[in-house]
């Protein structure tokens, strides 16, 4: 089963590099690259560390189902307003 993640989106939003995130969660920056690409599934500990670094729940970052596109989320938010 594949594990989807939004690490790259959160990283871009906060303007931090792979290296900075890797240093914060104490892994090699290649590991962050492979995580973002979906080539590596993190341990629960690493997933929680990354979520804590971004200050969000772990479900916001990782999901067993595909995340909906950001455009869709924004459109729905616009309709709600």
């Amino acid at each position, binding site marked *: 089963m594949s594990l989807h993640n939004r690490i790259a989106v959160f990283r871009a939003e906060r303007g931090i*590099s*792979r*290296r900075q995130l*890797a*240093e914060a969660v*104490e*892994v*090699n*920056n*290649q*590991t962050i*690259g*492979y*995580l973002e*690409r979906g*080539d*590596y599934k*993190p*341990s629960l*500990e*690493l997933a929680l560390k990354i979520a804590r670094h971004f200050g969000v729940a772990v479900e916001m970052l990782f999901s067993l189902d595909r995340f909906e596109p950001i455009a869709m989320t924004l459109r729905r938010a616009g309709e709600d307003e």
Partner: protein
Amino acid sequence: MNPNHRSILSRLDDAVRWTGFPARVAKKTAVCWTGFPARITNKMSDTPSLDRKHQPLRWIPILPIAVSCALFIFSLTWPPALDGVSPGAIISIVTAFWGSIVGMAPIIYISGPLGKPSWKDDEREAALRKDSFLFCLWPLAALNCLGQPILLILSHWQNWQFEHSASVVSLSLMLNAALLGCLPTLYASWKLGRLPKE
């Protein structure tokens, strides 16, 4: 001195830089002069390497495997011309090839399949290292379990002489060493594709 006419020792010094250890030692020494040796010791022992990248070796490890395979097959075919060659000459030739394989070991094997020591691994690298050795286990076990009875039958069937048997045994050992050293490195190098630059 002309850089093209350097001694073998100076070329070996350059080769050691590939391992990354001289840079690490230089960095450690420089920081120790600032008066914080304890801090750097903790940093080196407790945290995974953030700056030491896994440098994949995708092609070099194929060379020792190919040479070992070729020599092993050659020893099995054993041309009749070799019957007259003295055992000393055969031992010298085998030792020379052994030496060339062992000479390549520091590049491929000394730092492990990821090209760096295991105590610097993070969780992904530790898992990759374990997978590399596990991947290497089954072909080696299968090769040895199947190969030994086959060699026994062949030696009896073809009535091998001592020189022939000795060269087959020593070259099968060399093939085993090459596979054990190089297969994990190949697996770790090919398992994951290259990452795009950020």
